[in-house]
């Protein structure tokens, strides 16, 4: 479904991605991991066409995304930093996105699940961090597209919301979606992920499932296994 070939990206002189190859064929939950600034968000934004690659190609369902926009109908995206027009009310924001993107059958259900109805009438600019993230989640899951990209979905969520989010992600997986997640919360990743893609210094440093990772690093603990990927590289 997603194929990234030899992707390079630099911002002025800052080389962020240098030849990323990645092929995600089947549905399932994929986690992109890597230290801060390793280019996870950059990779995701390239897939969405918000960041333009310096070199390389990206295909979604065998079609190049270059200069295309229609393919984004296939993708739901939860941005890492939820920047919404702050003078809108939450409900105005939701109906605006619905108006722009087509109708949603699930918005009510999601609004209920995350308790967003309590602040539907608040201005987005006055929401707390977690409230904003809940709104962000409602917007991202609302359209039921086959590809779901979540950049740090757990940020700021309380434990109840976090449980709902995990259940929701599992449910979407069972319905056959391809879900791409970045996160720094290792317990969260360990619990939900099928495949790990570890980005380091502009390349895919490791790709495989959790038991493969543990075997390769000879660590029993997932968090330590990830840490050892980092350390072994720095030695």
């Amino acid at each position: 479904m997603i194929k990234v070939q030899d992707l390079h990206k630099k911002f002025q002189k800052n080389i962020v991605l240098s030849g990323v190859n990645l092929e995600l064929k089947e549905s399932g939950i994929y986690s992109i991991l890597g230290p801060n600034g390793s280019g996870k968000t950059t990779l995701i934004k390239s897939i969405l066409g918000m960041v333009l690659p310096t070199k390389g190609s990206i295909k979604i369902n065998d079609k190049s995304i270059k200069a295309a926009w229609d393919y984004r109908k296939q993708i739901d995206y939860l941005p890492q930093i939820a920047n919404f027009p702050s003078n809108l009310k939450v409900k105005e924001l939701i109906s605006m996105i619905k108006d722009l993107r087509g109708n949603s059958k699930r918005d009510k259900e999601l609004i209920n699940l995350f308790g967003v109805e309590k602040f539907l009438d608040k201005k987005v600019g006055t929401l707390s961090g977690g409230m904003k993230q809940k709104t962000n989640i409602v917007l991202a899951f609302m359209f039921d597209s086959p590809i779901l990209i979540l950049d740090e979905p757990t940020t700021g969520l309380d434990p109840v919301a976090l449980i709902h989010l995990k259940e929701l992600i599992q449910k979407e997986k069972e319905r056959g979606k391809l879900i791409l997640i970045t996160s720094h919360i290792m317990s969260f990743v360990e619990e939900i992920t099928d495949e790990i893609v570890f980005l380091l210094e502009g390349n895919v440093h490791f790709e495989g499932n959790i038991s493969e990772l543990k075997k390769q690093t000879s660590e029993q603990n997932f968090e330590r296994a990830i840490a050892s990927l980092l350390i072994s590289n720095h030695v």
Partner: protein
Amino acid sequence: MFKILKYSFFDLVRSRWSYVYFLFYLLLAATLLFLNNDLSKAVITLMNVIIILVPLIGTIFGVMYFYNSKEFTELLLAQPIKRSSIFIGLYLGVAVSLSMSLLLGIGVPFLLYGLTQSAAIWDFSLLLITGVFLTFIFTGIAFNISLSNENKIKGFGYAIMMWLFLAVIYDGLFLMSLVFFEDYPLDKLSLIGTMLNPIDLSRTLILLKLDISALLGYTGAVFKTFFGTNQGLIISISVLFLWVLFPAIRMVRKSNKKDF
């Protein structure tokens, strides 16, 4: 595109600034009419104000709105919408709502004063059309400057400098060069010089129509002898069109190459 235009337009129409702008023109037009007691004289004074102020307001609003809509733009960029539609939509939202404030603010007092019975109606309409052109041109340039500058303060600075240059400094340089190269045939040079500045071009256009030789100035006179009044009008309006078109095209190009 039209959906985005709709959102930015209503966003602006709801904002305080549109009303301030509208009321300002309303007061200006009413005062001028009250003081002059003569429609055609009011038109001339109004022209002098419009030609300087409309570009300034288009510039400031364009830059402000562009930077303030950063969140809105980012949200839209992840949706299945063409990039060009997003930016053209925002741009038209600003330009159309500013034009509306201008048209209503000036139009209403003049209509109430009995414009339709006056001979000045065509001069007045042309003045408003020129005002709309200037709004579109300077909003477009402002969007270009903001697209190229990530830094708000810098973008604002460049935009104001651009306005200052075209509204004030350009004329001075232009006059100086005319005086300096006095001994050469300057017709063509001054024609080109006028066309390269939308503010000068608008002034020439209106003065051509008003046909007041005393105010026409050197370039206006050249325009008149070169093209005749009617052809001069058509040519200057066409060049104003180009002035709207180029910033819009560059805006689409630039936005297609930018990372968000």
